[in-house]
């Protein structure tokens, strides 16, 4: 009778271990979770790059917004910049394109834009206050905020034209009603 107990105990321990490993290996360890999807975009007041009047989130609301965090020292941002330039030109009527300079000096950022093109306005995020508020985990990252000021999601890493076009198109469609909201409306 007792003989099967030890193998059974080992089987239970092995199954538990497998479960933990499966959970651990099932996700990319470099991926930082993003929890702000579906919540209102945190407010910000930032100086535009190159000087001018402060820009507030509330000034921009009412239109969908594409918010790109970048830095001149970031390699992938260089590959990504032409895509955003194209996006701002082609889809500027559908969404406000806005860049946020992350952990960089104003001179470096201006130099980068002189070389790469500056089709959309840029903000200076002094001391990365806004980046922490928005849950940024590196650059480049692109946030998609709808006209109601809700974060629909973010794209981590350099964005490609197809994804950018698809995400901007999604912004003009009504948000997929969450189950709680759907239940309330019924």
């Amino acid at each position, binding site marked *: 009778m007792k003989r099967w107990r030890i193998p059974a105990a080992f089987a239970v321990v092995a199954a538990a271990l497998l479960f933990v490993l499966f959970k651990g290996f099932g996700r990319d360890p470099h991926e930082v979770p993003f929890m702000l999807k579906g919540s209102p975009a945190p407010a910000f007041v930032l100086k535009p790059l190159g000087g001018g009047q402060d820009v507030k989130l509330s000034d921009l609301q009412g239109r969908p917004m594409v918010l790109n965090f970048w830095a001149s020292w970031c390699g992938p941002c260089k590959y990504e910049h032409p895509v955003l330039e194209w996006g701002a030109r082609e889809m500027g009527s559908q969404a406000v394109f806005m860049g946020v300079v992350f952990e960089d000096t104003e001179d470096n950022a201006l130099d980068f834009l002189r070389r790469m093109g500056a089709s959309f306005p840029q903000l200076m995020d002094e001391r990365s206050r806004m980046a922490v508020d928005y*849950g*940024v985990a590196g650059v480049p990252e692109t946030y998609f905020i709808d006209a109601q000021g809700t974060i629909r999601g973010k794209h981590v890493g350099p964005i490609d034209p197809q994804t950018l076009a698809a995400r901007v198109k999604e912004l003009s469609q009504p948000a997929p009603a969450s189950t709680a909201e759907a239940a309330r409306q019924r």
Partner: protein
Amino acid sequence: MNAVLVSLTLALSLATGQFAPQQAASDPLAPAREARVQVLAKKLRCAVCQGLSVADSPSSMARAQLDKVRELVSAGKTDEEIVDYFVARYGEWVLLEPRAEGFNWFVWLGPVVLVLGGLFVILRQRQPLPEGAVATEAAAAPSPSSPPAPSTDDADPYLQAVRRELER
């Protein structure tokens, strides 16, 4: 060769400014509050590092996160509210020590259960020695370097059984 290439690449990337310019951290708060800031920063994971806390990482993002902790502490937020602020953005991933609740109990109690289970198995395996064996063991124990004690083969029931098998 590879080392030379890596050094050259690093030197080149430094020369062309491919690094985040350092910014000074915000000023420390009064000692009592700053101690709280440091304790909290030790618990929070830096968003751009691999398993370093906000307090330990030299990265610019960690500095920005530390600034935020200071800001929230000066605003009179409780420790729980500050931790919740970061969890609301980065999820429980941001906590270097998982919260002791729900599925996380598995992580906390798993090792203890394994050690207890191992102890149980060891104790079960150590069956009490027969009385005769205890006596001979006690006699042999004091001088382990001395030549082996006179053979007790005749007393050993197993050896007797083996002999009987061989003689058959």
